[in-house]
């Protein structure tokens, strides 16, 4: 112990003596540590934000297709449904005794690239995201009239819309729209608070509103001028939708999930698919997790580069320090002490790099948190170092020791061959 503290003391003093090179080495290790841990933090946050895009929903039901496809269009507003669900089928299933609530959604139209979604008041009552949060209105109120629309936060912000704004809905989801429902304009009555989920990029209206703009359409084509109906005419009609795109289901008890899922999947009226959103989200994340892995591999290499920089600094210092080694030998240091001295030096540099890197990480997270929340809807959680972080840090220290063997071994051999003679 006495020897170890002596070596530690000498290593420390020696590093201090070469403080500029040491500082640069520590900085490069620190930056690589920050990158590695930061990538992990952000990917964790992105993952949990992704996984909690829907919360509290037990099942999502749509026309039979793939699990991920259903998830993509019903939750992420990506891609299109292959088929719709008959309104009668929906009504029938919604009455299932295990089911507490359902949220029907009807997709297909858009406004300047943002998807329009028809739904009911139940959406505001039961839809949850994140850690079971309900949607909150930032301004205005829920839609109640036929031509009312409630905007997601991003839609309002990017398009610069406020309450009372008149907008027209385009048919289909393409941004280059050929058919525009310009005969039936909608009015913005509410704007939702930011959620960091696809809700921010959606325009919400009633199912009846969706029905109203399509009621005079014939076989998927816009009406001829003489057949088209005005907004007032339409509002007199029965606007119960004939079909919806999908619906979200909340159950009385989680225990019922699999039996209800089975019943929906075996529904005789038409081919339907019920999925567990959590499972489907996990599966989808695994698909896009490749990018995540690539980032991690790259940042691991950056750490390696940092450590190799340290190796270079120590190795180049060795020659000018042969005299120092000879002096230490003359006062009683063995070649193994010299070896240990250089190992400790590598360890010290790596440890300082790690400590500084962690400090950088928290400063950076603190600075970046508001930006990430505002622009990407990612909510960084300030937690201490995780188990993973500690393993990474210890891995770096271990790698430094392994890399440090090279200069230590060289110094050991110098010490043996030079002895007390300083041959320069």
């Amino acid at each position: 112990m006495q020897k170890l503290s002596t070596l530690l003391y000498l290593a420390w003093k020696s590093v201090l003596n070469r403080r500029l090179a040491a500082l640069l080495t520590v900085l490069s290790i620190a930056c690589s540590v920050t990158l590695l841990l930061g990538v992990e933090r952000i990917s964790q946050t992105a993952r949990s934000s992704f996984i909690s895009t829907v919360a509290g929903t037990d099942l999502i039901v749509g026309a039979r297709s793939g699990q991920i496809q259903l998830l993509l269009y019903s939750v992420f507003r990506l891609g299109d449904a292959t088929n719709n669900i008959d309104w009668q089928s929906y009504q029938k299933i919604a009455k299932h005794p295990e089911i507490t609530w359902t949220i029907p959604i009807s997709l297909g139209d858009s406004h300047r690239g943002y998807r329009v979604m028809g739904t009911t008041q139940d959406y505001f009552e039961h839809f949850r995201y994140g850690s079971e949060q309900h949607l909150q209105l930032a301004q205005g109120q829920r839609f109640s009239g036929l031509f009312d629309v409630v905007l997601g936060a991003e839609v309002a912000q990017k398009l610069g819309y406020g309450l009372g704004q008149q907008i027209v809905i385009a048919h289909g989801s393409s941004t280059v729209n050929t058919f525009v429902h310009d005969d039936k304009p909608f009015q913005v009555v509410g704007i939702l608070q930011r959620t960091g989920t696809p809700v921010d990029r959606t325009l919400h209206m009633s199912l009846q509103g969706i029905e109203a703009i399509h009621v005079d359409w014939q076989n998927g084509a816009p009406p001829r001028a003489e057949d088209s109906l005005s907004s007032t005419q339409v509002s007199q009609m029965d606007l119960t939708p004939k079909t919806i795109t999908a619906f979200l289901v909340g159950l009385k008890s989680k225990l019922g999930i699999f039996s209800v899922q089975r019943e929906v999947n075996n529904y005789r009226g038409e081919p339907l698919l019920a999925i567990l959103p959590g499972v489907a989200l996990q599966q989808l994340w695994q698909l896009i997790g490749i990018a995540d892995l690539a980032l991690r591999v790259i940042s691991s290499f950056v750490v390696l580069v940092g450590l190799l920089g340290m190796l270079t600094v120590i190795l180049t210092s060795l020659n000018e320090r042969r005299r120092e080694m000879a002096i230490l030998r003359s006062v009683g240091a063995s070649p193994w002490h010299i070896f240990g001295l250089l190992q400790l030096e590598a360890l010290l540099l790596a440890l300082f790099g790690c400590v500084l890197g962690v400090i950088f990480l928290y400063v950076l997270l603190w600075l970046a948190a508001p930006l990430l929340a505002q622009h990407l809807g990612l909510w960084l959680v300030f937690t201490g170092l995780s188990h993973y972080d500690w393993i990474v840090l210890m891995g770096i220290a271990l790698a430094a020791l392994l890399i440090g063997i090279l200069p230590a071994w060289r110094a050991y051999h110098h010490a043996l061959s030079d002895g007390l003679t300083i041959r320069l």
Partner: protein
Amino acid sequence: MSECLAIENLQFAWTDQAPLLNLPSLHVEQGEKVFLQGASGSGKTTLLGLMGGVLQPQQGTIRILGHDLQQFSQSGRDIFRAAHIGFIFQLFNLLPYLSVLDNVLLPCRFSLRRRERVESQGITPTQEAKRLLEHLQLNPNTYQRPVTDISVGQQQRVAVARALIGQPELLMADEPTSALDADTRDAFIALLLQECQITQTAVVFVSHDTHLAKHFERCIRL
């Protein structure tokens, strides 16, 4: 007086070279002051390496305080050297990143025996280091300064203090005065020998400069 250093039939060559050193016999009694004179390249420094147990002779024996250095393991020789031998070199004796005082304390950090010998007198290594530095006429306000701040003559005196702390039985000096001018040279040697006299430390002083031989009891040519 008993024997401190005994060398018999010593031969040493660096790899693939003609023997550099051939020393049939060398004996130094305890407390004796010996001047070892040899021209440059006569293997003086190599001899110090051999006597310090850092180099291995191809032939012959080296006994220090009755112990054959060849009988020790590598680490055993390191421990033995640290405990019983103090070294002073030509130049650059000191670690540039330590203070004067910390340089003097180094042997006590590496050798338990030398620390214990200081402590057996009822004083701490730091007190002993300060005492030695004072004896060697170093100004107390230099003790905490980096060694790069003081003159070469002062540095060599710090090296003497470091070699003598913990009372090693043998002090080996390799041209310690070559960087000093004539006046300070004699004063330095006088001070060195006076300190060694007090502690009864044997001295092997290696130099090419025959003028210095007058300070010593015995002069041997290599």
